[in-house]
């Protein structure tokens, strides 16, 4: 039969009604849509050949409710149109991963955007058939997978596992799937809910039940387009790097705490039992990423720090009675999340005792540490919010690591064990982050460069331009003219002569000089600029 030839004639004709659209898809996509099956359709007396993708497009439009932004893809295999055109393989929808991917792609072209999609009652046995959902319809808000045959967490991970997938999902229906049924019959309802919610952090409703959660007053990504947008253009930072910032509290309270805490942490962790509140929380987490700046500086191999390569992450990842609590990589799920949070002073100190021995030289090299602290009101009791950044030497390797540590402190109550043992404060919460070494010069006070090639900073802390001739000329100038000229140089890009001229004709007022420059800059000759 010459069916193939005939079909090519009809449907591949350039400019043919359906041909062009289908070709666009074909070009862009070498996946399921690249393969266009064809079949003949009897339409009254006229035999019309159409590409399968066009039939699927018609199916999608039949199932689309634009008013409710609802795409109903339920019971696909039972659909009269699908059966008539034999659009599914013999196995029905359950084995139709490619066809479902085609549907998602077609759905992605619908207007308005699909918000609700139901794939209920399709007998889907594997999550892999859903793997393209988040790619084509990342903004889906409501999803029903009711009455399918999804049975493992792996199936769910096809639509959830990575960051950035289905970030708008608000409601999910998983009832009548073996995965949920099994967790329910094994009395693990809480675990089921936790695991599901962990996979879809934006979820508000699971299986028709509200999920208890904490809200914030910032827009979700979907609504932020309403706000006015403005492209940031600053090439300097709004402020310089500042010294340790301690305010609202006698700084001796903070320093007394730190100079007593760290020696005990280094030498006798059990001795910290009293300074932790009986219900205190403690955890540590490890950021094992190699910092880019430190790598370029070569700290990992420097002669001054010969022991860096002997450091091992293992004790910080698996030690401390439960291991690192990096919630960004909480592969172990709910159990691990609970096990790595040490609640109560005894549990806290016990976990710490299982971590490597450290030496924080907080009194010998204070420049290697940096503290920000101030009081916070929490309910009716005052508390102290403290963050410290610094470094420690680790035993036995004697390699050096950087750390960040945050505390919530409260006044030690009269008669408490903390008070009896001479502490002014008790620890309510303590979080330790251990990182690969970065030099403490990161917090050296003063101006900072945003990026290579940008000026150093604004205002009083301007750096002189790199051009040596200009530097010589500048150094000959008296203050305050010198810094005014520098500021105009930096902000306008004018050369020295024009910058001085501009200031002179504006009574040495930088604001007026800059405004004047903005008015005339289009008319200035090329050689007015550096």
């Amino acid at each position: 039969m010459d069916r193939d030839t005939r079909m090519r004639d009809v449907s591949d004709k350039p400019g043919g009604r359906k041909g062009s659209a289908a070709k666009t898809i074909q070009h862009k996509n070498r996946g399921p849509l690249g393969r266009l099956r064809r079949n003949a359709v009897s339409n009254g007396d006229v035999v019309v050949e159409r590409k399968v993708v066009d039939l699927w497009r018609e199916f999608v439009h039949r199932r689309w409710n634009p008013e409710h932004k609802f795409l109903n893809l339920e019971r696909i295999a039972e659909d009269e149109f699908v059966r008539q055109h034999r659009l599914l393989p013999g196995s029905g929808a359950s084995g139709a991963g490619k066809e479902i991917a085609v549907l998602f792609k077609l759905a992605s072209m619908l207007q308005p955007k699909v918000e609700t999609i139901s794939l209920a009652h399709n007998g889907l046995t594997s999550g892999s058939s859903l793997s393209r959902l988040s790619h084509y319809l990342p903004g889906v808000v409501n999803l029903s997978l009711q009455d399918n045959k999804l049975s493992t967490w792996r199936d769910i991970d096809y639509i959830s596992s990575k960051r950035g997938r289905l970030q708008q999902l608000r409601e999910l229906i998983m009832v009548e799937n073996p995965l949920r049924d099994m967790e329910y019959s094994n009395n693990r309802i809480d675990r089921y809910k936790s695991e599901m919610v962990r996979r879809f952090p934006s979820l508000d409703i699971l299986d028709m039940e509200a999920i208890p959660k904490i809200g914030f007053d910032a827009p979700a990504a979907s609504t932020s387009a309403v706000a006015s947008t403005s492209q940031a253009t600053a090439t300097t930072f709004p402020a310089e790097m500042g010294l340790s910032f301690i305010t609202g509290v006698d700084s001796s309270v903070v320093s007394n705490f730190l100079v007593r805490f760290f020696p005990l942490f280094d030498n006798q962790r059990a001795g910290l039992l009293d300074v932790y509140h009986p219900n205190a929380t403690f955890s540590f987490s490890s950021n094992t990423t190699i910092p880019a700046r430190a790598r370029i500086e070569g700290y990992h191999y420097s002669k001054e720090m010969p022991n860096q390569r002997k450091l091992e992450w293992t004790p910080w990842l698996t030690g401390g009675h439960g291991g690192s609590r990096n919630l960004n990589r909480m592969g172990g799920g709910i159990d691990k999340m609970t096990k790595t949070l040490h609640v109560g002073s005894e549990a806290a100190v016990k976990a710490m005792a299982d971590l490597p021995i450290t030496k924080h030289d907080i009194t010998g090299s204070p420049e290697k540490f940096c503290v920000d602290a101030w009081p916070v009101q929490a309910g009716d009791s005052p508390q102290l919010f403290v963050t410290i950044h610094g470094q420690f030497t680790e035993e036995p390797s004697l390699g050096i690591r950087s750390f960040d540590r945050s505390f919530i402190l409260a006044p030690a109550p009269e008669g408490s064990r903390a008070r009896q043992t001479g502490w002014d404060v008790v620890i309510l919460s303590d979080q330790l982050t251990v990182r690969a070494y970065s030099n403490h010069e990161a917090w050296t006070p003063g101006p900072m460069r945003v990026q290579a090639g940008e000026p150093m900073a604004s205002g009083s802390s301007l750096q002189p331009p790199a051009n040596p001739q200009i530097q010589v000329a500048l150094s000959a100038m008296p203050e305050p003219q010198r810094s005014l000229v520098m500021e105009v140089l930096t902000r306008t890009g004018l050369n020295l002569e024009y910058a001085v001229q501009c200031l002179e004709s504006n009574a040495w007022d930088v604001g007026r000089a800059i405004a004047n420059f903005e008015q005339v800059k289009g008319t200035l000759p090329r050689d007015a600029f550096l």
Partner: protein
Amino acid sequence: MSTFTQNDIEIATRAADHFTRLYYSTYDSATRVDNLPNFYRPSSAMTWNGKPFQGSDGVRKLISAMPVTKHEVQCFDCHPIPGSQPPNLLITVSGTVTHGHRPTGNSASTSSKSVDSQPRVFSQTFMLVPDPTAPPSKTGEVAKYYVNADAMRFVG
């Protein structure tokens, strides 16, 4: 002061996960000047590299003058702080941040090996507290939280 239930810990973790995604995507967005201050209240205190900024207005002032940012969260942790119900939350974040338009700072005169063209390591600690005046607005919402204290520093 009672200890926390598994449910408290789960809600706190979920909130931290949600918060860190939302906060840094807002910070890095073109609408940050309008949206980032919403995480704060007039009473909030924040420091940026040791320089204090007060309240939502202070945050707006800071962010208005900030070069374009791109944050990458590498590590975060969250505790419910003992002594309050619903609990205040302590969140610490460790990651990298790149400022400016050119992702690697590859201007003609500088090599990509230049330290200045590399992302910085940042450390940011937040204390989140429930806002008693803001009733929950969504199904299942236990409470609405805001940033009461926020200390950010470049640390590498």
